[in-house]
């Protein structure tokens, strides 16, 4: 059964006709070509597919595309300014070497921004607890935690 959707993705209106079982991550990656949102697991544990839906972080592998009907979705591709200037969280990840292979990174950055939106002055323990839903196998999280703290400070300016 096909469903027709209208939503906003990275500020642009999108309409799509997809099978009802289509996941939001499939809509983004395979229908819209937004391949910056990654799939790292099948149990909603790794967080590589994290995007924002109406300003809140969601795991796009765990949301049906149909549930995103009428919402505003922000993916990693929509984060930097139109002139290419990085979002402060993206810039902090680069500055702090908060990424290595890059695969978890896009979801990690989207989660980090949501974390800071909810906890603008998060300490290390809060950052670590809040990142529990995003797995990284490369960094040991050390520099990710630093990057989130630095990104939070930059976002507060």
């Amino acid at each position, binding site marked *: 059964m096909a469903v027709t959707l209208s939503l906003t993705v990275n500020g642009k209106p999108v309409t799509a006709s997809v099978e009802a079982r289509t996941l939001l991550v499939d809509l983004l*990656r395979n229908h819209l070509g*937004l*391949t*910056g*949102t*990654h*799939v*790292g*697991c*099948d*149990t909603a*544990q*790794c967080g*590589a597919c994290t995007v924002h839906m109406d300003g809140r972080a969601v795991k796009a592998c765990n949301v049906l595309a149909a549930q995103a009907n009428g919402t505003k979705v922000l*993916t*990693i*591709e929509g*984060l*930097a300014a139109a002139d290419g200037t*990085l979002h402060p969280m*993206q810039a902090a*990840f*680069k*500055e702090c*070497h908060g*990424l*290595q*292979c*890059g*695969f*978890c*990174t*896009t979801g990690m*950055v989207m989660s980090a921004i949501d974390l800071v939106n909810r906890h603008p002055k998060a300490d*290390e*323990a809060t*950052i*670590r*607890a809040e*990142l*529990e839903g*995003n*797995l*990284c*196998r*490369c*960094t*040991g*999280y*050390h*520099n*990710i*935690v630093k990057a989130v703290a630095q990104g939070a400070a930059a976002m507060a300016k």
Partner: protein
Amino acid sequence: MGANEPSVVGQSVRRKEDLRFLTGAGQYTDDVTMAQQTHAYFLRSPHAHANIRAIDTTKAKAASGVVGVFTGADLTGVNGLPCGWLITGTDGKPMNEPPHPVLAQGKVRYVGDAVALVVAESLAQAKDAAELIDVDYDVLPAVVNCVAALKPGAPQIHEQAPGNKCYTWALGDKAAVDAAFAKAAHVTKLDIVNNRLIPNAIEPRAAVASYSRGDDAYTLYVTSQNPHVERLLMTAFVLGLPEHKVRVIAPDVGGGFGSKIYLYAEETAMVWASKKVNRPIKWVAERSESFITDAHGRDHVTHAELALDKDGKFLALRVLTTANMGAYLSTFASCIPTILYATLLAGQYTTPAIYCEVTASFTNTVPVDAYRGAGRPEATYVVERIVHQAAAEMGIAQDDLRRRNFIRSFPYQTPVALCYDIGNYDATLDGAMQTADVKGFDARKAESAKRGKLRGIGYASYIEACGLAPSNVAGALGARAGLFEAGEVRVHPTGSVTVFTGSHSHGQGHETTFAQIVAARLGLPVDNVDVVHGDTGRVPFGMGTYGSRSLSVGGTAIVKALDRIVAKGKKIAAHLLEAAETDIEFKDGKFTVAGTDRSKTFGEVALCAYVPHNFPLDKLEPGLNETAFYDPTNFTYPAGTHICEVEIDPDTGVVEVARFTACDDFGNIVNPMIVDGQVHGGVGQGIGQALLEHCVYDADSGQLLTGSYMDYAMPRADDLPSFNVSTRVTPCTHNPLGAKGCGEAGAIGAPAAMMNAVMDALASSGVKHLDMPASPQRVWAALQTARA
């Protein structure tokens, strides 16, 4: 590097690759979509061990959207997957090397063994069709434990491996070891298990295979750490295709940790099938599939004995290990518990006699191969745990016992084949103890005790052999491949540079580190140098990235090519400046006649090489493009000391890693930020092994019990502390960069350091032994048993 190069080498240059990763512009294999693309799904064995009586694919072939269905019977003329290292046993015979079919041939040997490949228009259609395949299994008893597999009466997995034995292999002087034990003042004995791990790169394995009828050629995008090796093994050993007709591209790869070194069944079957269906085929592993198909790591059972004299000098070490190979020999499986394990058992110590015997067995589990560290973490775990226990038994301080036995004279020939070129083990032990504030430990322990907690401190002074490898040495030890590396430096007419390397970056930051080396040498901005890797169609034949080899071997190949660029540039400059070649100096991007101000910039010389109007064409070819291959003359020997402090809640058994300190010697460092990041990641995986991770199979059914992130405990941000890392430097003596490698150190040192800390914390409660992972249940149970 030369002493007077003002260099970006040694600077924490921010990474060139980050912009694309941070904006979602990375190009991973799953991001590749081709016109007319089909989708693959592999039907896998649900049984650990079964004969296949029959497979009926009739209904599947007729299902909606199906393009092709293939089983082992269809793969005529296709060989099995090869093993790249021949181990010769103590009986003088080659290891048992049973066939490793691409798709099952009459029998399945582990849960996940590929039985059929379904190709369809959509993934959903491929999955639906796979459900219509009727496989008639005759289920057999299974064995998953490597020791149990060797017992009489164990289920027989391969005809070609009687008793499930792959080999028994040994290294060292058994008689000398026996003699040393006979006169020992103290003997420490240890039985330990090195727990089986699942690598879990966050990007699942994936492939896109396509065939072009027009030029009878194949293109394979694949998650590989070594695309040339992948191509060579696939074409020459399995599919019988001409190598030049297959292009293998490993684009951005989301972590490897060893698991993406190997030639796997999936991409091999897909390349073969891409011609049959004459359409591109894409496959991306689901995470559940990764758990049951990516090569696993570790899985050793070991008995070790250390002989000491009355002063704590090590006299001899005896190690008997059983290693799990899984159901088939993966690409480098056989050399991990032998060549990369027993040779490391001297550690940082002068132990004069060492004997190690390893028996490798087949079981009904996923094949086991290299995982970050590969043999060296297992060796360090044996050595450092037995040293810890010996110190505790003899009442000698942990640092003191280590210092009494440190190697201090180099080069040092160990009794287990390796010759260490250089090191300073006191320096890294001192550095770690200082940063870890060992002096303050007693006060912290007392403070923990006030809160009812048990605090412990543990050391691991590790060594590794990296920079794999001198090809002739590896060949003599059974390697069926060379282990050199290739680098090409292509200077463009306008003086910017593209570097092609056979190394592959899947997180290590080569695009930055290698650019720094080139920029420093040629006096260019880092932005004027780009690095290309991971494409057999663009890069000279290289061996790829594993064993912490990229900088010391791949980087040196680039340095050799740079030497040739500079030498040719001097000839061109000499001509332009009408001076003798021997008078030309190259520094800061300028070729200068020594003692004068007459010079040509690197860019001017590059332009002249490509617009050779005023050029010594009678003596020199135009162009400025050099390729070099570098084969190392020895392994490199990174070493260091890691110190871990844990706090344990005796009521719950929960272990908290309170502090973790690493002081490492990686030789010269190009980018300290990247090196620190590599240590962080390795330590994270090492603590993961010691604290959390454990691959468990059901002993009867052979089903994987830890087959998802709900069941397999991956380290998360709130499981780990921040780490204190620092370095000391003794430059490697046999490569021009003086580099040793840093990628695996964290995973090598951390497990032993952490478990020694746990043992130290539990010692006062009477706990004598614990295996990894130190889960709350295990720690709590050990405390209850000790108290009973």
